[in-house]
Every structure is written in C-alpha cells, then in structure tokens.
C-alpha cells in the first residue's frame, strides 16, 4: 500500500525527465502516469534516498516509452478536414483585416511602395551585374589588355596589337579561338541617298560568331564575314537605311562605306544594352598577321576550358618576352617601349577601370552595393511597419487566441494562421507593387538608364524571384508577431490581461528607432549627394562650355577643306570665333618629358593638347602670366598651366625652355590658370598647350544652339560628301556626371519613399496609441488637463524616439558620406547645417504626422470617450 497522501517532501523529480515524458506521452495518459511516478518518487525518497529516487524516476520515465504511451490521440479525436479548418480561418482573417481597414491600407500601401522601389532596384542590379552573361560561352571568354611601358610611364590600354590574336590561335592548343574587333569611323552612304556617320562600326574576324552569341536574323553566320567587303548590320541600322523591309531581302544589297562598295551579308539582333562591347555593324577585313605595331584591336580569346585561363597568364608573359617586345625593339629601336598583356574575364569587364581607348562606359560596383543596401533598407522599413501593426493589435486579438486555444488549436496552428495572414497582405502588396512599376514604366527606364525596363517583371524567370521575395518578407514581417500571438496563455488571454505589458513596447520602440535612423540617414545622404552634384555642375571649370560646339573632322581628306569651312562660318555674324584646337575635355594620354630647370634635366609626366591662337579666347581661359600664342606659324611656343609651374618650381615661367628631345625645344610664352580638363574626380595635373595652327581632330565653334542651321548650311556648302557630326561641350559635360546625377535622382526618390513609409508607420502607431488610451485621456480631461498636455502625453514618447534616431543617424550618415566623397578630388565640405536642417525637417514632418491623431485625441469630448465600452 502506498503511504498516506499527506506525507510528501518538497523535493521534485528531475525536470528534464518530466519534460521528456510530457513530450512523448499521449496527452490523454500523461497526467495519470506522471502522477503515479510522482507518488512513487515521494515514497522512494524516504525508503531509498533522494538520489536513488531521482534515478529510479528517470529510469521509469524511460521505461514508459512504450507503444501504448506513444499512440497519437488522433484515434480519439476526429481531425477536422483541411477545408473545415482553412476556410473559417481565412474568413476570420479577412473579417479582421476588413474591420481594421485603415491599418490594412497603411500596411498595404507601405508594403506596395517599398516593394515597387525594391523591384526597380532589383532590375537595376540584375542589369548591372548581368553584363555579357547572355553569351553562352561567357565563362570561357577573356579579353586581352596591354600595359605600355616607356621610360617612367605606364599606360594601360584596352586595345592590343593586331598580330597577337593569330599568334595565340596558332601556337596554343588551349585557345579555341581568338578574335579581334577594330573600331572604325564609318561614313555610310546608302545608294545616292543621305550620308550617315556611324561611330559604332567595327572591323571583325569572321569567327566572332563562333565565340559570341550574336543571333542572326538573316544571313549565314558561318560565312557572313568571310568574303571581302562584307558588312553585317544590326536591326536598328538596317531599319535606319532600308525602312521596314523584310530583313531577308536585304542580304546582298550594297552600301557605300568610307567610299568603298560593301555588300550586306547578315543582319543581327541588336545587342543587349548590358554588353560591354557594343556595335551597330561589323565589316570584314584583310588583316596583316605580322603587324605588331598597330595597337588598335580589342582582342578576345575563347579558351577550351575555363580552367585554362589562369595558367595562360604565364604563357602570355612568355609571349611578350620572346615575341612581342623583341619585335617592338626592332621596329621602334631606341624608344625603349615595352608591351605586356593581361587577361580579363569577359563578364568582369564592365567593372574594370576605364583603360585608354576602352569600349564602353564602365560601371561602378560601389553603386550596385549602395543600391542593394537601400533596397534592403526600404523593405526593412515596410516590414517594421507590418511588425509594429501586428504587435500593436495583439492585445485586441487576445480573445480570439484564447477561444481558439480553448477549443483546441495548437500553437503551431495559430502560428500558421497568423503567418498566412501576413502572406496574404504581402502577396497583395506585391501585386500592387508590380502594377506600380508597370505604370511607372517609361519614367522608370528614363531614371535608371536605358535597358532597364519593367518588362522584365513579366518574364517567367521573375516568378521565382517574386515568390522568393514574398516568402522572405512574410517570414521577416510575420514570424515574430505570429509567434507572439500564438504563445498567449489562453486563460490570461481570455481574462483580458494586458499581455503587452510584459515588454512595454520595447520592441516597437527599437524598431521605430531603426526605421527613422534609416530614413534620416537617407535624407542626409540625399542632401549631401545633391550638394556635391550641384557643386560639380556649377563649379567654374576654368573654361567656357556654354555655346561651344565641337565638330568632328571625318578624315584626312576632309581635313584639307576645313580651313575653307572655317572661313565660310566666320562670315556669319552669329559665329564669333572658331578654333582648331582639340577639345579640352577629352581623355588624354600621359606622356613623359624631360624638362630642363636651372640647367638640370628632370623627367615628369604631363598631359598635352595641340591648339591654335584662337583657342584661349574662344574658351575664355585666363592667362595669369605672359601672353597668348603669337600667330607666327612656328610651333616652338607652348603655354603651361599653373600646376605645371608649381610642379617644376619655376619662379619665372615665361621664357623658360622645355626640352622634348635634342631637336625639339619649345619656349613657354604664357601660363594659363588651372582648368578642369577631366571630371572633378581627378586632380589637375601638369598640362601643356602646344601651338599647332593646323586642323586636327575637331573644330570648336562659338555658336548658340538656336543658330545650328547656319552650321548645317555651311557644312553642306563646303563638304557635302561628309556627314556632320557635332556635340555641344555642355552636353558632353553633363554626360560625364551621368552616374552621379542618376544616383541623385534615385536618392531623391528612395529617401522620399523611406520617409513616406516610415511616417505611414508612425501614423498607424499613434492612432493605435490614442485609441488605447481613449479612456485615460477622457479621465485626464475631466480632471482638467489642457489640450497641450494631452498632445504632449501621447506624442512625447514618439518625439523621444525620433530624437534618438537622429543622434544615431547623424554620425552614421557622416561616416558613409565621407567615404563616398573620397572618390572626388574636388568636393563640398559637409556642413553642420546640412545635418541639422535634414534632421529638423524630418522631425517636423514626423510631428506633423503625429499631430493629426494627437490633436484629435485632445479635442475629443470626454463624455464620448468615457461612455465607450
């Protein structure tokens, strides 16, 4: 017989064993089993001691692990069918969401807007990182680049020697193919019709179609470039020349290119915009295999195996030593020039540094990272809104949870129900977001750059991404609230105990701080980017760009007639000046010179351009010492910039002699004030203007954009057989800051967005807080509290949070901006006012958001608020 019930000790059996028992045991049985075990335990304490009792207890628990205790209870309770459980839950969810429409609307709107932004950024990122990945052999294709070393200087060149590709193809089995593209200025004449100047035409090897994927719409890729005088056009050019004719009929048509007859042998699809090497047409050509001196072809190598590339670098160095450099030595003799080649994977070309003579505008990985982070931030802000709303409403749903649990719902079922609610909202938000993006379509690609279109959203591949994003956000936004709600104790929940008291809204507050930290940082960032961009665009560059037009001189033949063109132009009263000098803003190669200072020869690297005597006046450059070139016709005069004088250390620059070689000595006639020949990213280096009165690359004309017909008419009368190709310096200038301007536009949108979504969240929260404290406010009013007091009562907490966010955001933003500004040689200083103004602006906005509900609460008649129940 067991001992009497009243004899028991305070000792407890090992908790882990009990937990294990409860875990495995059939819920119908564990009570009696555990009771018996406890009883046995208490008896054993007296008879066998505490240690033994515990051991025996644990052992017994193990022995109860048997079939009958493990049986699931489903034998006893019929389980509801899926539809019986799902539809009532769904109905309840929908009813609940509908009842709190304003929360739903705020949540949905915030989600949709930030998802739309996120989708746009995703498009941008996939565009930027997808460069050249459309080639099926992309991972095996490498481009060669060259380092040109000459006494003291090193130039990195994108083009390589023409002779390299055939040598690689013949001598090395791992090279499957090596092809070249040679940029060519092409003047295209279609029958007797108009002239077109095409800048994106390459001469190319016939095998380019075997290396790259250029889908052919008409013609045979195997033979297209084999025949001499064959041309392959892309669809756009074909349409430009022949209109909407059937592409097949264009094969065999003739075109006059650079005054020679060519036959069209193929039409290819336009290349995707995210392709590093872009062209509109390809010409067949006869190459000279042994030509090592003309460094002008982009050379691509296709390896048999992607693994071959790394070891091939060594072989390349050997080729340079044994073949390339001896030949250069032989040809150029004393010049001491060496050429070294390197390999770059095709898909990484977009992010390499811009080399001399490189193919396309290069991307900057930093911006890809920045925007990825921004996308994450924006989604985070929306998720936080979602979490905050769910948590804020948790106290209203406690009855529901209590009843469901009493009826028999298990925590994970409730968890699923709340998760699926979030899933529902997120999916709806995603659909809205896609609609937004599609509606904003054109504007979208205009801002992000051509080639990035919302059409990609409708492609099948996006389905997985979209579902992935939805699941990710659902998990992020729904997981914690669902867990929290489903963990309510049913009795407490039904009693209406304030289940939120436990955490006092700490989570909500910290999430709010994160939100506003992000938003404030973004606004400060936008402000700083804006001031840097404006600074760059408005800074006096040291020369005039406004109303300066640059006309490209097509070829040597045309160059002879350029003086006549100039004279004809100058007859018009609207054209005040014309100069043959090279554009001041093009990219220039660095050369090394010997300069004699005080009888001592020193080497220095300088940049130089050829100009005539009208150049300095035309461009409004300022001469600080000496004078302009004298129109003597003798090319022994140079003008240097102030950086040059500083570098050399002359006290008196004018009259100094600069030695270029034994036979080539020039005299400094003047010093020009520093001007920004490159973007403000770069420091101003020593620069020389050489006197050279003949026309060279371009003609600079001082003309207003409204008088362009004068230019066109003059060109027509003096050189009707050439196309007119011109550009205003101002346009070129703005293009150079394209990346920064685009970034500014995006920053504008995204900071606005983040603020908007964060304020939406704030609006939701304050309305909730006010609702919750309705009675309190009523009582306080009855007791004589003024409106101001009520307003401060409900908004004090939020203002504090905002202030905290400010203090975190300002140093964060400051650090990040300093980092970004490092990439500019000339930059704005970040003023304190910038930070203060941004922070205050956001605080004001937030206070405005708060004040609506706060004032509403303060104005409420206490009779109304106290009556509600």
């Amino acid at each position, binding site marked *: *017989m067991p001992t009497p*019930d009243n004899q*028991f000790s305070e000792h407890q059996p090992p908790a882990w064993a009990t937990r294990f028992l409860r875990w495995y045991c059939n819920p119908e049985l564990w*009570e*009696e089993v555990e*009771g018996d075990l*406890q009883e*046995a335990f208490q008896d054993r304490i007296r008879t066998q001691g505490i240690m033994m009792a515990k051991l025996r207890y644990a052992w017994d628990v193990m*022995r*109860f692990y048997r079939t009958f205790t493990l049986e699931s209870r489903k034998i006893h309770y019929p389980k509801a069918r899926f539809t019986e459980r799902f539809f009532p839950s769904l109905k309840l969810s929908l009813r609940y969401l509908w009842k709190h429409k304003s929360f739903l609307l705020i949540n949905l709107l915030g989600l949709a807007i930030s998802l739309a932004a996120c989708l746009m950024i995703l498009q941008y990122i996939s565009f930027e990182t997808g460069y050249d990945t459309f080639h099926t052999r992309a991972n095996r294709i490498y481009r060669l680049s060259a380092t040109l070393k000459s006494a003291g200087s090193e130039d990195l060149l994108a083009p390589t020697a023409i002779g390299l590709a055939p040598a690689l193809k013949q001598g090395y089995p791992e090279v499957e193919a090596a092809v070249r593209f040679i940029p060519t200025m092409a003047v295209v004449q279609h029958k007797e019709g108009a002239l077109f100047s095409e800048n994106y035409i390459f001469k190319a090897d016939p095998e380019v179609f075997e290396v790259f994927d250029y889908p052919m719409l008409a013609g045979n890729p195997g033979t297209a470039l084999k025949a001499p005088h064959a041309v392959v056009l892309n669809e756009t050019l074909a349409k430009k020349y022949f209109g909407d004719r059937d592409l097949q009929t264009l094969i065999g048509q003739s075109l006059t290119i650079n005054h020679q007859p060519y036959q069209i042998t193929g039409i290819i699809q336009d290349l995707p915009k995210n392709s590093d090497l872009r062209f509109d047409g390809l010409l067949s050509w006869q190459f000279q295999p042994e030509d090592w001196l003309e460094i002008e072809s982009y050379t691509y190598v296709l390896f048999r195996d992607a693994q071959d590339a790394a070891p091939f670098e060594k072989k390349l160095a050997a080729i340079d030593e044994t073949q390339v450099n001896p030949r250069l030595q032989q040809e150029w003799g004393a010049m001491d020039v060496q050429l070294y080649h390197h390999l770059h994977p095709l898909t990484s070309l977009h992010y390499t540094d811009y080399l001399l003579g490189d193919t396309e505008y290069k991307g900057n990985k930093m911006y890809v990272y920045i925007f990825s982070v921004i996308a994450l931030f924006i989604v985070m802000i929306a998720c936080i809104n979602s979490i905050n709303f769910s948590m804020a409403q948790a106290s209203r749903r406690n009855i529901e949870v209590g009843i469901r649990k009493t009826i028999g719902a298990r925590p994970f079922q409730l968890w699923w129900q709340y998760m699926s609610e979030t899933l529902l909202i997120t999916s709806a938000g995603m659909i809205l977001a896609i609609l937004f993006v599609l509606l904003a379509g054109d504007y979208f690609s205009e801002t992000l750059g051509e080639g990035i279109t919302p059409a990609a959203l409708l492609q099948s591949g996006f389905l997985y991404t979209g579902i992935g994003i939805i699941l990710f956000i659902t998990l992020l936004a729904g997981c914690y609230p669902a867990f929290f709600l489903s963990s309510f104790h049913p009795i407490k929940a039904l009693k209406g105990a304030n289940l939120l008291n436990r955490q006092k809204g700490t989570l909500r507050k910290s999430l709010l701080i994160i939100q506003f930290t992000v938003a404030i940082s973004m606004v400060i960032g936008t402000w700083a980017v804006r001031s840097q961009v404006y600074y760059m665009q408005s800074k006096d560059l040291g020369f005039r760009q406004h109303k300066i037009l640059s006309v490209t001189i097509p070829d040597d033949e045309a160059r002879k007639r350029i003086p006549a063109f100039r004279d004809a132009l100058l007859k018009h009263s609207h054209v005040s000046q014309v100069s043959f000098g090279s554009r001041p803003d093009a990219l220039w190669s660095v050369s090394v010179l010997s300069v004699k200072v005080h009888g001592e020869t020193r080497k220095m690297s300088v940049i130089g351009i050829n100009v005539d005597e009208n150049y300095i006046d035309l461009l409004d450059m300022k001469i600080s010492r000496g004078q302009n070139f004298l129109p003597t016709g003798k090319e022994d005069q140079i003008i240097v910039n102030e950086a040059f004088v500083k570098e050399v250390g002359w006290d008196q620059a004018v009259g100094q002699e600069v030695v270029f070689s034994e036979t080539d000595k020039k005299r400094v006639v003047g010093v020009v004030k520093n001007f920004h020949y490159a973007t403000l990213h770069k420091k101003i280096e020593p620069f020389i203007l050489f006197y050279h009165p003949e026309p060279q690359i371009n003609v600079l004309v001082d003309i207003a954009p409204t008088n362009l017909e004068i230019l066109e008419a003059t060109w027509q009368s003096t050189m009707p057989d050439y196309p007119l190709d011109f550009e205003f310096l101002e346009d070129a200038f703005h293009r150079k800051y394209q990346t920064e301007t685009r970034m500014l536009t995006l920053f504008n949108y995204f900071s606005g967005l983040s603020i908007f979504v964060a304020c939406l969240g704030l609006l939701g929260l304050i309305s909730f807080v006010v609702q919750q404290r309705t009675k309190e406010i009523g009582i306080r009013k009855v007791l004589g509290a003024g409106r101001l007091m009520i307003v401060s009562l409900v908004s004090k907490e939020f203002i504090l949070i905002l202030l905290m966010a400010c203090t975190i955001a300002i140093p964060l933003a400051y650090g990040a901006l300093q980092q970004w500004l490092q990439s500019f040689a000339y930059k704005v200083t970040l003023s304190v006012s910038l930070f203060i103004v941004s922070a205050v602006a956001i605080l004001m906005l937030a206070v405005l958001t708060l004040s609506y509900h706060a004032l509403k609460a303060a104005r409420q008649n206490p009779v109304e608020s106290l009556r509600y129940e």
Partner: protein
Amino acid sequence: MKGTYLGEFEELVLLSAAILYDEAYGYAIAQEIEKQTGRSISLSAVHSALHRLEQKSFLTSRLAGATTKRGGKRRRFFTLTSDGKLALQEAMQLRQQMWAAIPQVVFHTT
C-alpha cells in the same frame, strides 16, 4: 481484439484491482503486487497491463482524486467490469479444475 485470454501478469493486476476495490490505480496496484509477491514490479508494466485490460473491457476507469503528493495530478481509478469478474472466475475455475485432475499420488509424500 485478440480474444479474452488473460496472461499471468494481467491476472495479477486484475486480482490486485479487485483487492483494492475502490482504491485501485496504477501505483497502488504496483505496490499491492509487490507486497503480495515480493517481486519488484515496474510501473510501466502495470500501466501497460491496465491499458490492455481496459481495451479488453475487463476494467473501466475514471479520473479523480488529485493530491499534492502527486504534484496535483489526478489518478485513474480502475473498477472491474462484469467481464473482468467473469474472467477472474474462469481463471480460478480453470485452476481448480486442473488441480482436481492431478492424481493424488503426485503430492503424496509418503
């Protein structure tokens, strides 16, 4: 159900439940068997047997009587059903019948 065969241990459990009458629950039955037989009995074996006996409808049960000593857990009290009583009687009859069939000489010690 796999017949109404009564195993040896089941019989002991059933007998103990009958002895304890109103106080028959797992632990008490285990104690009773230990006391009667002097064997060490595992609780889980008793519970398992009770579970089987209930399924064979030799026993019915109800939950009641939580005590502090049991950590506030109720016990499951078992009561013999008429089937249970019948089964016990049959078991006893079987034994008596078989005892009677043993020739006297077996136990005759002289």
